[in-house]
């Protein structure tokens, strides 16, 4: 009885979340330097635009600029949040984020090299800088994974430590490069704070399938993740193939974060706080937590990116700044409230 009630409640909350997400997405299309009305947006997206009433430039902005950008921010936000959820469960560590395996610094290092040596051109619809970021991330993941492996098993503490060390190492290397080539500092810094400014249908196409397949796979292992949170020994006692699950999820999740980083740069914070936020609202059951993190993370990123591109008229703010600047205080507030409630004050 109770559990059915809970399931229905969750269902209602998820539907609400989805509804808010759709409304926000439509609203976001209207926003920007050029304001476009909701009816026009609807007409354009449904292909009902006749050139007499709607400017061609508006159709172009909606179809080629804003919609791909909005979809990309939704997807990346959702991915990062789910990856954060997975890592926090696997490491049983509330501090884990999508970049624990060194993805961020690896990608940043790759991108820095790309920017400094001015490599141009595209590959599979990805700019060379993105491509190098992806390669940098992959190499780092492999290094961290190898360093943390002891006789066929990966130790989670080993990963955390190796990740931290590699992160520090590469960050130092990046700083050094920035000092050597200080006229490129702006571009590097902008890249490391994330942006959806270059969003395109190609980029979306590139990460869509990995994202959906990856998140789908993680969703099918939600129950195992629940058991993992209780401890690896507990999970084993329940019949979970712990070592295999850990390997597959570690690799899959860091691969996804490498994809995310390569299209949008490093966007911090989202993958850390969104899972915690929804854990407070929905509890720790991953069967619910993973889908709501995906939707909620997407929504959060969409809002941040819309702010990033419309707050200042003259320029775009890197979205990573917004996620931290606006998300941080909001999260702290919630944390306080939650703490008070659980302490019965």
């Amino acid at each position, binding site marked *: 009885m109770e559990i059915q009630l809970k399931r229905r409640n969750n269902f209602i909350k998820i539907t609400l979340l989805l509804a808010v997400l759709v409304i926000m997405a439509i609203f976001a299309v209207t926003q920007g330097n050029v304001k476009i009305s909701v009816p026009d947006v609807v007409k354009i997206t449904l292909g009902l635009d006749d050139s007499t009433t709607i400017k061609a430039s508006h159709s172009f902005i909606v179809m080629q600029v804003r919609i791909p950008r909005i979809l990309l921010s939704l997807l990346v936000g959702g991915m990062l949040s789910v990856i954060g959820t997975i890592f926090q469960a696997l490491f049983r560590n509330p501090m884990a984020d999508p970049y624990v395996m060194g993805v961020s610094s690896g990608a940043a290092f790759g991108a820095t090299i790309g920017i400094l040596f001015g490599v141009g051109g595209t590959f599979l619809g990805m700019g060379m800088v993105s491509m190098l970021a992806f390669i940098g991330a992959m190499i780092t993941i492999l290094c961290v994974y190898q360093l943390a492996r002891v006789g066929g098993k990966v130790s989670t503490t080993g990963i955390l430590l190796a990740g931290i060390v590699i992160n520090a190492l590469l960050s130092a290397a990046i700083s050094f490069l920035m000092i050597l080539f200080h006229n490129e500092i702006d571009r590097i810094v902008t890249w490391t704070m994330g942006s959806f400014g270059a969003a395109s249908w190609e980029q979306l196409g590139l990460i869509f399938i990995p994202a959906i397949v990856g998140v789908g796979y993680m969703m*099918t292992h939600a129950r195992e993740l629940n058991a993992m949170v209780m401890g690896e020994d507990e999970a084993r006692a329940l019949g979970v193939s712990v070592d295999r699950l850990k390997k597959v999820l570690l690799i899959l999740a860091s691969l996804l974060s490498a994809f995310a980083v390569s299209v949008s740069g490093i966007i911090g914070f989202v993958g850390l706080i969104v899972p915690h936020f929804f854990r407070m609202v929905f509890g720790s059951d991953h069967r619910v937590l993973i889908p709501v993190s995906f939707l909620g993370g997407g929504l959060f990123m969409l809002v941040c990116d819309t702010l990033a591109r419309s707050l200042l008229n003259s320029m775009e703010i890197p979205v990573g700044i917004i996620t931290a600047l606006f998300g941080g205080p909001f999260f702290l507030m919630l944390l306080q409230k939650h703490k008070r409630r659980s302490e019965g004050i």
Partner: protein
Amino acid sequence: MIKAERINFSYGNQNVLKQVELAVEKGCFISVIGPNGSGKTTLLKNLCRLLQPQSGEVKIDALSIKAYKPKMLAKKMAVVHQEIQNTFDFNIHEVVLMGRYPHLKALQNESAEDLKIVEKTMHLTGIHHLRHKSMSTISGGERQRVMIAKALTQEPDLLLLDEPISHLDLKYQLEVLKLCKSLNREKQLTILTTLHDINLAARFSDVIILMHHGEIVKVGPPAEVLTSELIRNVYEVDVTVIHEPHLLVIPH
């Protein structure tokens, strides 16, 4: 039911289990006793495949434990560990429900039947009234009972318990052991538990295993194992053993 055939186990170069031989019959209630560090937990972990012996073999129903698929094994045997860790908060109901995992296929939702089993084990272990509370807001003893409830929810044939009553008050020490005993008698649930309380071990067990320095010193009914001589040798404590009205070990 479960058998250990001359298992040796060492952590690094510290030899913790030495040629341990053990055979547990179905429906038996067995306690493992021994001083701190004598290897009880290590033995249990070898029996449930958390640790693999360097030599020797563990067999369940005459089949090597290595041959079991994880879920198969979890349906045969449930384990309650000595330490409990939990980073993120689940409520008690969710934790106990996890015990159904080995019985469910991937993506299969818990049926009404599964939920009924969960209700039953929560009642049996006296935690039903706590079911909405989270793991971090209950006492150590309550947490221990939650873990026992989760193990029972697995509906195993064999239950391994490591110090299941170490955090429990007097009432629940008895309640939990009585519960184990009644499941043991009525449902033929085989029980192997480590215990520090020799008198409770004597009262509830059919067989007691006495361990010392990684070796089994003596196996047998309580009256044969709990002699003042053996206890002095193993625990370095002088005791008087009374046999009437029931077996009682009194330290000097």
